[in-house]
């Protein structure tokens, strides 16, 4: 359940230099601009880049250290390549079985049928890869990698060619799977949405180096800010559930938030992701509106963002909450540093549920 990587590699002008360690299971999103070395990093960890020097350890097992190197096929990993790369000479079914067959029976922790079901591959089984659509190929590639019950899963933009509905089906399964199998996952993606929904940690890369590595709470504001969508993460705890309204009551410090969700165990720790654009500011706490969550707040800072908008940093129960509002509103409401106000929160994404297998519950909720 641990992954320790310290690798360097030079190729032309490009130089990869990556050292990081992951000590819990969970999904680490690898995020960064095109060409920053995400694919190269994954390949180097898998042992596919012969020029890579350094160490790779998984669960205390040494995959690479100096001149000692486990060959790729001895590393219990699953790799989903950026292009699906199916075996053109095998049917879909044989592609799926390829790795599965090579696994000693006692190491098979995922049933082939389960994968086929979940990824909706049943109707494709007898087909040949060259007749598949882009998304179909990618689903087969994911299934093929999962079928080896890997100890480390490396996925290079596996969902890029999938439609939203498919994604919505596959994402929770991936989460459940990695939690169940307790395997670390490195997941390359360009979508902050995917990061927010899926990741426990983020590895932020730039020009071959790792510029940030940390829990998603810390890094999401940075990466979503870069993507033009600043957001904040609040820590909270489940207080109770209002079954009649389908609302979960969450305590953030002394405050209470109501978030659409199924029941969760009392006391469970949660992260609440709140996009800055879904926070508005009012002066009067008592106005009747459909916005359930109205939190007393204090203005920490007001940062101009564009010609028309500002980013307001609010303090809410000792934590920071970002709100994006227009400059005109700032003026009309007379907002300034230190002023008390009410933060109206229109949507919350529940993240990183620490207990309970029901990661599927984690979802965006409009309150």
């Amino acid at each position, binding site marked *: 359940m641990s992954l320790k990587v310290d690798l360097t590699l030079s190729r032309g002008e490009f130089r990869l230099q990556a050292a990081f360690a992951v000590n819990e299971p969970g999904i680490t999103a690898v995020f960064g601009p095109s060409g920053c070395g995400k694919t190269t990093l994954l390949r180097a960890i898998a042992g596919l880049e012969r020029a890579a020097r350094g160490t790779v350890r998984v669960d205390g097992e040494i995959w690479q250290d100096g001149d000692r190197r486990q060959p790729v096929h001895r590393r*219990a990993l699953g790799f989903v390549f950026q292009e699906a790369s199916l075996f053109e*000479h095998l049917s879909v079914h044989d592609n799926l079985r390829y790795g599965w067959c090579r696994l000693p029976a006692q190491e098979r922790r995922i049933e082939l049928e389960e994968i086929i079901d979940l990824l909706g591959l049943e109707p494709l089984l007898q087909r040949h890869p060259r007749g598949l659509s882009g998304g179909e190929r990618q689903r087969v590639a994911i299934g093929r990698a999962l079928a080896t019950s890997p100890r480390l899963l490396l996925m290079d933009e596996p969902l890029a060619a999938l439609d939203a509905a498919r994604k919505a089906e596959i994402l929770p399964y991936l989460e459940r799977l990695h939690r169940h199998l307790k395997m670390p996952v490195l997941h390359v993606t360009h979508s902050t949405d995917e990061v927010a929904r899926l990741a426990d940690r983020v590895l932020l890369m730039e020009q071959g180096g790792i510029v940030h590595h940390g829990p998603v709470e810390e890094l999401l504001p940075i990466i979503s800010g870069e993507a033009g969508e600043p957001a904040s993460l609040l820590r909270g705890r489940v207080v109770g559930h209002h079954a009649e309204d389908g609302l979960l009551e969450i305590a953030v410090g002394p405050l209470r938030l109501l978030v659409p969700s199924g029941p969760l165990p009392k006391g469970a720790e949660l992260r609440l992701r709140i996009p800055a654009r879904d926070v508005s500011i009012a002066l009067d706490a008592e106005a009747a509106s459909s916005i359930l969550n109205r939190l007393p707040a204090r203005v920490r800072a007001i940062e101009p963002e564009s010609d028309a908008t500002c980013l307001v940093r609010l303090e809410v129960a000792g934590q920071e909450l970002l709100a994006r509002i227009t400059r005109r509103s700032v003026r009309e409401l007379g907002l300034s540093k230190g002023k008390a106000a009410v933060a109206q929160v229109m949507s919350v994404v529940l993240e990183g549920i620490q207990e309970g297998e029901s990661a599927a519950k984690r979802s965006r909720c409009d309150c």
Partner: protein
Amino acid sequence: MSEADLQALLITLQLAGVTTVILLLIGTPLAWWLAHARGRWLPAVEALVSLPLILPPTVVGFYLLVALAPQGPVGRVVEALGGPRLAFSFAGMVIGSVIYSLPFVVQPLQNAFRAIGPRPLEVAATLRAGPVDRFLSVALPLARHGFLTATVLGFAHTVGEFGVVLMIGGNIPGETQVLSIAIYDHVEALDYASAHKLSAGLLLLSFLVLLLLQRAGRSGGTRS
């Protein structure tokens, strides 16, 4: 068809079969190595493999005869080790044919292996396939067309080759007389009728064998 011709036919098929199998066994690893090796001297090795082609078969046969003869460098060693006589034997003909047809097997295989590219093998490695396993389960099937060509060229060339085989085998009826030599003899003896008959037969037979090979290679599905 005379009895001698029939015998020659059997020996020919036997020789071509055995030679083709050995060619594939030797040529496959060689081609694999050539397709993946790097280095300045690689073209030199590639050129070397094609060299047997350059000399006329009778001359190659002559040199092979010199080498394989009981007093020759190779023949002496083999006989010292208790090996069989190579000159004027089936074994000798096989050796000659293998050397002479090697480039026809190595080159197509090499190209086929190269055309696969590294990706399918990388994928196989991440799916727990070891090097030999990868080779058998991925490289071989993907190089199917190359194997077909190698087999066709190797087989056909061995059937038609006659200079080397004549020299090493000695054209002994029922032992080392192959069909190509028999036809040649008929022509030389101005026995055109027999030559025509035998040529036609050989062509027809070979056509069928080649056809079967092509069919077999195709049935695996075309990559297109």
